[in-house]
C-alpha cells in the first residue's frame, strides 16, 4: 500500500515504518467516527475507571469514557496541530529567509535582529505569554505558533540561500543574464528547500509536543474535546489508581512523533541532507 504511493521503500525500513505509522494515524483521524468503538465524549457513570479489558482495550476514564475511542478521536486534533502548526511558520519563515538571504542589506539586518530577540525567549515561554493575551484555545495556539515558529525556518533558509548564492551555479546564472526572480525561485529556492523539508519533519515532532504540552497545561485544546495532552492532564489525578488514562494518550504522542522522526531521517538520507 505504501509502495503504491511511489515511495522507494524497498530496503529502507525507516521510510517504510515511518510512512506506515503516519498513514495509520491519518486513517484513524479520517475514519474516527466509524472505527472508534464508542462516543469519545459521552459519559457513563456505571463504567468509571475500568482497567483495560476486551470491551475497553485501553480502559475507561473517570467519566466512564472509552480511552481507546478518545485516543482515536484525538488523532484528529493532534495531527491537525502537527500539520497546521508547521505549515504557517514554514510559509512565513521560507518567505522571510529567502528575502533576507537573497537581498541582504537592511532587510536582512532588520529580520536578523528580530529573530535574535525572538530566539532570546524560551520558545514555550513566549508561546505561553502570547496565549495568555489571546486567551486559551487552539486558535490562539496557531497564532502564537505562526508568530514564533517562523524564526527557525527563516534562519535555516537564509543560511542555505547565503551558501547557495556563492556557489558557482548561482554565479553562472547571474553571468548568463538570468533575472533575479528566476535565480531566486528556479535555482536557489529549490535547492534550499531540500534541507528544510527534513527539518519540517523534526519540527512537526516539536510542534506536536508543544501543542500537547500547552493543552496539558490547560491553555490549548479545552476539555471535553479528546486531545492527547488534555487526556494526560485529566489522568494525572488518577495516576496511582488508573494509570491507563495517562499512559495510552502519551504512547499515542510518542508513536506519532516516532513516525515523523523516522520519515525525516529517511528523507534526509534520500535527499542527501545532513542536519
Amino acid at each position: 500500500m505504501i509502495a503504491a504511493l511511489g515511495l522507494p521503500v524497498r530496503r529502507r525500513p525507516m521510510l517504510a515504518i515511518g510512512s506506515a505509522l503516519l498513514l495509520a494515524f491519518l486513517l484513524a483521524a479520517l475514519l474516527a467516527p466509524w472505527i472508534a468503538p464508542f462516543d469519545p465524549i459521552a459519559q457513563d457513570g456505571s463504567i468509571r475507571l475500568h482497567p483495560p479489558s476486551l470491551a475497553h482495550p485501553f480502559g475507561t476514564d473517570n467519566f466512564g469514557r472509552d480511552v481507546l475511542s478518545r485516543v482515536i478521536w484525538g488523532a484528529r486534533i493532534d495531527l491537525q496541530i502537527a500539520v497546521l502548526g508547521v505549515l504557517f511558520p514554514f510559509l512565513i519563515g521560507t518567505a522571510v529567509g529567502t528575502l533576507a538571504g537573497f537581498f541582504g542589506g537592511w532587510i536582512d539586518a532588520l529580520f536578523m535582529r528580530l529573530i535574535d530577540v525572538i530566539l532570546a525567549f524560551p520558545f514555550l515561554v513566549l508561546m505561553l505569554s502570547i496565549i495568555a493575551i489571546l486567551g486559551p484555545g487552539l486558535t490562539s495556539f496557531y497564532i502564537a505558533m505562526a508568530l514564533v515558529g517562523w524564526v527557525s525556518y527563516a534562519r535555516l533558509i537564509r543560511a542555505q540561500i547565503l551558501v547557495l548564492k556563492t556557489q558557482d551555479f548561482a554565479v553562472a546564472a547571474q553571468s548568463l543574464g538570468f533575472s533575479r526572480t528566476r535565480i531566486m525561485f528556479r535555482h536557489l529556492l529549490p535547492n534550499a528547500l531540500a534541507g528544510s523539508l527534513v527539518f519540517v519533519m523534526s519540527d512537526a515532532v516539536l510542534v506536536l509536543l508543544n501543542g500537547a504540552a500547552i493543552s496539558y497545561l490547560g491553555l490549548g485544546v479545552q476539555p471535553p474535546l479528546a486531545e492527547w495532552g488534555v487526556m494526560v492532564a485529566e489522568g494525572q489525578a488518577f495516576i496511582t489508581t488508573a494509570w491507563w488514562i495517562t499512559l495510552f494518550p502519551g504512547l499515542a504522542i510518542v508513536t506519532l512523533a516516532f513516525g515523523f522522526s523516522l520519515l525525516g531521517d529517511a528523507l534526509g538520507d534520500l535527499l542527501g541532507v545532513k542536519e
Partner: protein
Amino acid sequence: MSLLAIRDLEIRFRDGAEERLLIDRVSLELKKGEILGLVGESGSGKSLLCRAVMGLLPSRKLSVTKGHVSLAGRDITRLPEREMLDIRGRRIGMIFQNPTSHLDPVMRIGDQIAEGLCRHRGLPRAAAREEAVTILRQVGFTDPPRQARMYAHEFSGGMRQRAMIAVALACDPDILIADEPTTALDVTIQAQILRQLAELRESRGLSIILITHDLGVVAQTCDRIAVMRDGRIVEEGEKRRLLAAPQHPYTQALIASHPSLPHEEAVGDPYQPHSRPLIEIDDLEVSFPAGGSPWARRRFKAVDGVSLRIGRGETVGIVGESGSGKSTLARTLLGLQPVTSGHVAFDGSVLTLERARTLARLRREAAMVFQDPFNALNPRLTVGETLAEVLRVQGKVPRAAIPARVNELLDMVGLDRGFAGRRPRSLSGGQCQRAGIARALAVDPTLIVADECVAALDVTIQAQIVELFRTLVAAQGLTLLFIAHDLAIVRSLCERVVVMQHGRVVEDGPSAEVFARPSHPYPAALIAAIPSIDPDQPLAAAMPDPRSQTQQEGLLT
C-alpha cells in the same frame, strides 16, 4: 633484500553478492633509501594500495584476498592489530594530500607530534614536547618553540604540509608513504616540499613511496616509477628508462598529455596593439573588507592597480598562484564583482559609467566556465534543461529551434546527445565540465572566461578539455581568457600570457617570449618550479632561497 616487498597483492570489495577486484595482483619493491614514484589517475587504486600496506583499509567491505606485504623480510599482511600498531608511525610513516583535513584542528601541532613519541618511544610528555620542537626545526619551521603551540589553522598550506611531515617522521620511520603530498599546494610551495623530501632521504636514509597523478612531480624526485591503472601496475622501471621509452600505451598517453611538453602550438590571434580592444581595464582596484574592529575596518586589495587591453580573437592566459587576484579580476570584468576604483570597459562600453548597458551586453556576449564542474551546474536540473534555459533567457534562438540547438551544443563539446536527460551527479568530472562549456557556448559568446576550469580534472581529461578549447577557439574565433595556476597548460593553449602576483600584473607578453625569457623574477621562479617531465632538469633551479620563503610563510599566520 628490499625493505618493503609487495607480492601479488589482491584487494577485493565485497558487499553482499556484489564483488569487485580493486587491486589486481600488484607486486612492488622498495629498497632502502629509494624514492619510488607511484603514478596513476583518480580511481587507479594507488592510494588504496598504500593503505593496504599500512593495514588501514578504509572500509570493512574491503579485504586483502591474496598475496602479501613484507617489511624487512617479515610478512605483515595478516598481522594482528596490536602488532600493526608498532609498525604504523614507527616503521612506516604516512603523509596525505590535504594537510588541513588530516591534522587535528583542536590539538596543538606539537602535541600531535608528541603523541607518536609517547606511543612508540615511551617518552614522558615533557620530553616528547621538547623532541617535537627539534623535529619541527628539521622540517623548516623557523620558530619551533612558539609554532609547536600553534594550531593547524594558524599556518599556511605549505607549512601545514611540513607539519604533517614532522608528525609522520617523529618516530624516525624507515619508510614514508606520501599520498599526493603537493597536489593541494601552489607550484613554488610544491617545489619546496619535494625538495624537503629529497633532503630527508639524504639525511636519514629514508625510503619514500611518492604517490601522485603528476608525472612531473616524480620525474625529478624519484629513482623508479610505477604506473598504475585500474588496480594494476601497467609498467614499472627505472625513471629515465620509463620516461624515455615507455612500453605500455597508457604510460605513453600519460607522458603525451603531460602539460609540461609544449607539444602543440598555441591558438588565437596574435596581440595587435593598435586595433580597438574588446576589453580595456584601466588602473583597476578591487578590495574586500578584511575584518578588523568596527572603527578601523581593514580592506584587502585583491586586485591592485591592473591595466590590461585584450583584443578580439586573442587567447590570453592569466596565471598566478592562489590569492594572486586572477579570479577576482575575471569576475570584476564580467560585472560579477563591484569595482572599487578604476575603469573596466567591454567593447567600448564602460562598466563603471554605464553599468546597466554594459551589463546587458556582457550577459549576451560573454560567458564563464568554472573550476568545480559539479558545483557549477544546478544539481536539480538535467543538462538539457540547463542548456534550454539559457537559450530561452537569451532569446537568440527561436523557441521551436531550442531542442535542436541543445543537440548541436552537445555535439560541439563532444557529449553524446543522450546526456541531455542526465543530472550533473550522474556525470564524471570531465563530462560535467563539457556540459559547463556547452552552457557557456549556449550564449553564443564572443568572449569566454574560463576560471581554473581544468584544475579539478585528471591529466588525461585535462588534455581533452584543453583540446576542446583549442578546437572551439579555432572554429568560432572566440576571445578566450584562460585563468590557471598551471603555467604549462597556459603555454600549450594561449598565445599570450599575463602573470599576476599579489593583485598586480608582473608580466604580460606573447607566451613564447615569456616562457623563454621572463623579464620579472616571479614568473621566472614560477616557470622554474613547474615540475618538468624531463628528469635531468633540476628541481626548482631558479628558486629563491627556500628559507627566506619559509619565513615569509610563517608570517602569514
